[in-house]
């Protein structure tokens, strides 16, 4: 351990609507690093400047410019993360979700570096329910932004880590993370500095953006009722009123009524939206949060009475109806002592410190080591992983193709599981092996995240054993190997940029260099 070494360890919350970056200070306490405008959170928005083609605006300026030209603007990119079919075309260039996310990360890093100097290692947070493809995509975005991504952490875990180490929280803790675009519930057992995750459940498309859309629908209805025509005609109109809707939602978290003038193509109208109207409009969305809570409690084999503390994370938890609903359900008020927009980034910085402590303890300054020494975090695997096989179904009297789960969801990390499968036919020449992620046995409902062909020696009889071993490390990454027992050969699968093939180091470097050359403001 070195006493003099200066090391910059950071945590990033790459959010759907806002992002934040935090540093682990010299005594191992995380602190938010404000952006160049002095703001503690940065809108996850991008605008490709028309007048200055070489400049890409990220943050509040991108939000302010969006209503001028929607076609050059990007928001809520996190919802497309890992979607290889998605791209945004600007000036003939097609930007992938990973590239766009890397621009946001670049801006955060840039503002950090301006104050503290280079970042040595960073942990980026992801929603607990993000699958392997999305986790990898997030790490790739970090790499493209020129960051040394040492690990990723689940958002509710990061938040809980921060709460557990800075507030007096213990017992069974439920983290209710309702952010801009995603919703996660995590249940954990906290005893002093020992944090054991029990389970996580998440919704991919449920958050503040969806509440905004409900407000927008109300505005449009109001306008139609008055003038019989649409309030928004162009994409730019829509962008303007999407922002207005977000403002109304925020106002309704503080006051019982929000009033707004709408300026549409046929004239103006003053609208009044009450908290009750808003709550009625989002009732179905809130029902979904109830269902997710039910699911998490069931998975943890608990009831509401087993939970000692409910921690709120994410801007959407400011909605009074959300807090009221939780209080009614659990019988006590949820914990709101920490800024719900910042705790994920702060926890991610702590997680980065813990990763260094585990993997490179000699690199950590004494102050940080002392600050972190008592924290012990045990996370779980957030998805089930399996393989496709063809067992005999005695009921149907035939072989059926199905997904066989090998590594079960919520297994504590690190973990390793081996199952043995058998070849099907005499003189089988090859074996197509697949790695799946998902909870279904039906093949069409799980994602194939890697495939590999194993050549088999000729002349073999049927039913030769193939050992399949899956493991999941503490950095939330999966590893798998297929062992041809007779031949004594082990085939390890590598997860790459996309499921179709690994991107070479040269291609990866080209990606990084290209992103490095871009100017982000």
């Amino acid at each position: 351990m070195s006493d003099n070494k200066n090391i910059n360890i950071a945590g990033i919350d790459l959010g759907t609507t806002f992002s934040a970056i935090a540093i682990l200070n010299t005594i191992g306490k995380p602190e938010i690093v404000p952006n160049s405008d002095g703001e503690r959170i940065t809108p996850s928005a991008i605008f490709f400047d028309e007048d200055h083609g070489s400049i890409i605006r990220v943050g509040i300026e991108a939000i302010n410019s969006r209503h001028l030209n929607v076609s050059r603007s990007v928001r809520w990119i996190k919802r497309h993360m890992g979607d290889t079919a998605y791209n945004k075309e600007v000036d003939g260039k097609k930007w992938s979700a990973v590239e766009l996310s890397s621009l946001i990360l670049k801006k955060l890093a840039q503002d950090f570096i301006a104050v503290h100097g280079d970042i040595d290692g960073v942990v980026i947070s992801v929603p607990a329910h993000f699958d392997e493809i999305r986790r990898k995509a997030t790490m790739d975005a970090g790499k493209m932004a020129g960051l040394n991504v040492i690990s990723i952490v689940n958002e509710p875990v990061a938040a809980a880590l921060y709460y557990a180490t800075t507030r007096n929280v213990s017992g069974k803790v439920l983290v209710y993370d309702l952010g801009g675009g995603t919703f996660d519930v995590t249940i954990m057992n906290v005893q002093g500095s020992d944090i054991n995750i029990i389970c996580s459940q998440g919704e991919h498309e449920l958050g503040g953006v969806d509440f905004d859309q409900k407000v927008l629908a109300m505005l449009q209805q109001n306008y139609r009722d008055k003038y019989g025509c649409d309030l928004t005609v162009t994409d730019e109109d829509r962008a303007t009123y999407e922002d207005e809707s977000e403002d109304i939602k925020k106002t309704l978290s503080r006051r019982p009524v929000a009033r707004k003038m709408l300026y549409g193509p046929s004239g103006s109208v003053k609208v009044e939206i009450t908290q009750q109207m808003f709550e009625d409009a989002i009732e179905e969305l809130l029902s979904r949060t109830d269902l997710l809570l039910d699911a998490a409690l069931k998975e943890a084999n608990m009831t509401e009475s087993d939970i000692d503390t409910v921690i709120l994370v994410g801007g959407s938890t400011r909605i009074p109806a959300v807090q009221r609903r939780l209080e009614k359900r659990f019988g006590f008020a949820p914990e709101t002592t920490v800024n719900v927009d910042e705790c994920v980034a702060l926890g991610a910085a702590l997680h980065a410190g813990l990763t260094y402590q585990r993997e490179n303890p000699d690199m950590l300054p004494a102050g940080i080591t002392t600050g972190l020494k008592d924290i012990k975090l045990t996370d779980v695997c957030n998805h089930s992983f399996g393989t496709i096989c063809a067992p005999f179904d005695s009921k149907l009297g035939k072989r059926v193709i199905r997904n066989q789960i090998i590594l079960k969801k919520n297994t504590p990390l690190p973990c390793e599981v081996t199952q043995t499968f058998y070849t099907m036919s005499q003189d089988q020449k090859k074996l197509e092996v697949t790695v799946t992620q998902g909870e279904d046995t039906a093949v069409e409902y799980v994602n194939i995240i890697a495939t590999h062909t194993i050549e088999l020696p000729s002349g073999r009889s049927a039913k030769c054993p193939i050992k399949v071993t899956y493991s999941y490390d503490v950095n939330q990454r999966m590893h798998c190997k297929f062992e041809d027992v007779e031949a004594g050969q082990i085939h390890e699968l590598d997860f790459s940029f996309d499921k179709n093939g690994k991107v070479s180091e040269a291609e990866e470097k080209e990606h990084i260099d290209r992103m490095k050359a871009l100017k982000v403001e």
Partner: protein
Amino acid sequence: MNLNLYLALIIAACLLYLLIATLIQQYRNKTALTEQAKKSLYAKRLTVKLALAVAYAGTKMSALQLQVIKSYIKRDIAPKHLSQKIACYLKLLFQHFLIVSDGNQCSRISKQITALTDLAGCCDILDLCVRVVGTCDIVITKQLIFLKNISEQLGIDNEAFRFMLEKNIPVSKYKFEDFEIILGITSDMDASQTNSQLGKEYIKWNNRITNSNPQIRKQAQDMLNFIAKAKSLNK
């Protein structure tokens, strides 16, 4: 219904039966059928009748429904003998075959089928019926009840039946009123059991929301909204 329509129905039904019998005869002439193959072929003939009944449980038969049934006949009954002429005749026949499906008829056919074929065969039959219904723009309650009854009569469990519905019918085609059948809620469930079933369905579809197939993602998102609506109702 007037006498003329009844007559038209009887004639159409007879014609269809004759047609399939002709197809089978042609097939028999070419191949020496074993007893098992005969049974199987008979079961398939009944399957077509069942599929037709299900199709007509809607308002009228569509070209798509016709296509699904024709494909089945071509593939499974008379792969090499369905000449162009017969195909055209079949099409005309289907288009004018205005039968009113009734539950008793389906029940009778289903019973005959179970005596002739195994569970795997019954699954294929129900799959055809579900696909036929899946081609409709809107699935009406009567069709859903028909399908459910057929699945019960064929000895297929509720989970397997609903799995076929999920695979073949987008939730946007259902009317919300039918949520109980779609979500596996039965009349004997109390509020707590209903909530538990909704929770099970919610977890299942939420796990599918990040599927790499955009159609499945869309179905999952629609199902989550559907379940949330049912949950609001069950509060």
